[in-house]
Each structure stands twice: as C-alpha cells, then as structure tokens.
C-alpha cells in the first residue's frame, strides 16, 4: 500500500512541470523554427514550380526550333538557301500570334513562371 502511495506521489511529481524563466523564449524559438521550416518549404515548392514551368516553356520553344532544323536537314544542302529563306520568313512572322502560337505560349509560360518566382521571393523576404 505504501509502495503504491509512493508511486502515485512519484507520478504526480513527474507530472508537475518545473518552472523555467525562459519558457516564453523557448516557445518563441520553436515557433520561429516552425515558421522558418514552413517558409523554406514554400520556397522549395515555388522553385519546383518555376523550374517545371521553365522546363515546359523551353521544351515548347525547343520543339518549335527542332521542327525548323529537321525540315532544313531533310531537304538537304541543295535546298539550304531555300530553307534558310523559309526560316527567316517564319521568324519574320514570329511575333504574329497566328504563325507561332506555340512559341508565344511558351514565352508566356516562362514569363508567368518568372513572375511567380519573383513575387514569391519578395513575399518570403
């Protein structure tokens, strides 16, 4: 019985938290660490989104160039000058939306991704 009493008393004493003068500081340090971790996570997610967006944009723009170059190689050197003229012609139309939709979309995505990155960075800083 005495043993049980002592063990109950011991459990009660263990349950009483000691008083620390820096308790508030400790709590603040933990919440600051939580906030820092959360901010880092948001930056990481944002950076991943930016990289993915840029990759998509580069792929789309690259695909556009690849089409032009494959066309050039398939037609052979004899048609080189003709293709070059065609290519030049195409790029003259580069900034007309009807002729190069993919390029425009890619560029828009890249700008969006960069804009997102900049605003996120400003937000975090």
């Amino acid at each position, binding site marked *: 019985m005495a043993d049980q009493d002592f*063990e109950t008393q011991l459990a009660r004493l*263990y*349950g009483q*938290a*000691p008083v*620390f003068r820096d308790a508030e500081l400790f*709590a603040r340090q933990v919440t600051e660490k939580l906030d820092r971790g959360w901010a880092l996570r948001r930056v990481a997610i944002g950076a991943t989104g930016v990289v993915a967006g840029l990759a998509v944009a580069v792929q789309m723009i690259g695909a556009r160039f690849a089409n032009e170059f494959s066309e050039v190689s398939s037609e052979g050197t004899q048609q080189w000058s003709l293709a070059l003229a065609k290519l030049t012609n195409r790029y003259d139309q580069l900034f007309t939306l009807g002729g190069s939709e993919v390029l425009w979309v890619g560029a828009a995505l890249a700008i969006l991704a960069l804009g997102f990155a900049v605003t996120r960075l400003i937000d975090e800083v």
Partner: protein
Amino acid sequence: MGTERPHTGHDVELAALAAAGDRLAFGELVRRHGSAVRGLLRRLGADPATADDVAQDAFLVGYEQIADYRGEGAFAGWIKKTAARLYLRKVKREARFVLTEAPEEAAPAGSDGPAATADRLDLDEALKHLSKAERLCVSLCYGADWSHAEAAEALNIPLGTVKSHVKRGLDKLRVRMAAPSESASNDSARRENRG
C-alpha cells in the same frame, strides 16, 4: 493559416487546429507544455542544453505528426513520449553509456546522508542520486508513462533488467524523498543504535 487571435481552447482543439495548419495554435501548445517536456528530458539525464535541443526537435516532430494525435490521451503525454523517444535515439547514437544489469556508480551522497537534505520532496535533487540507468528507467516509466516492456524494447535490454533498474531507483528515491518526520525518526533511531 493561423489567425491573430490568442488561442485559449482545450489541447485537443488546439491540436486539431494545428493539424489544419494553424501554427499559432501549435505555438500555444508549445507554451503550455514546453516546460514539462524540458523538465522530463532533464530528469531522464540530459544536460540542460541537450534537453532544450531535444525538446525543440520533439515539438517540431510533433507538429509534423500532429494528425496522429487524436485526443485519446493528454497532449502532454503524447509529446513527452515523442521527446523521450528522440532522446533515447540520441543517447544510443552517441553511445554515451550502456545499460547493464550491474548497478552503476551514482552521484555521491551528501555528507550528512539523506536526512540532511532540506527539501526532501525535491524529485530533481533525489534523481541525482540514482545511477544513469536507474534514472532513465524510472523517468521513462513514471515521467513519460512508458510501460516496462516499452522501455525494455526502446533500450534494447531485457525486461527483467528494466524492472530491476526501476526497483532499485524507486528504493533510492523512497529513501531520499522520505517525509521529514519519517527521516527524523530514522535519524534518532540511527543515533540510538550508535549510542
């Protein structure tokens, strides 16, 4: 995300808010239970700096795993168990000491013996007189509310060893924390025997 109003709800409510991403609610839980966790780690044998580091880590882990806490028990108990687990992992990683069956050297007793301690109910003072293994086992079982089996598994030692560490530790604590009147009568009995 968190609101700016101060949180005054029950721990279970705060934990639910924290699980939904409210870091302010979790901050309130840290304020409420930070000292208990830090105190437990010191009682387990951690030095103050280590205790604070592990306590911080325990709360960070607790925040990550807060969805696992569904209010079956007290939040304090849940977070203390997490802290104890982290501390044991740290102790084992650093191989600071090995728990053995043989009694270890405890802190030297005061020159006047147990009866000379002014505050006999000071648990922290009494714990200093236990060996590291006894202190760890007693504090895990009575402070972190672990069963002997859980302690044995976590410490990777036989159940019987944990039980004997706990028993020896309790015996020492009982003597150290004896009520003043009881100790005084023990003292006078000792004096009579000597005389």
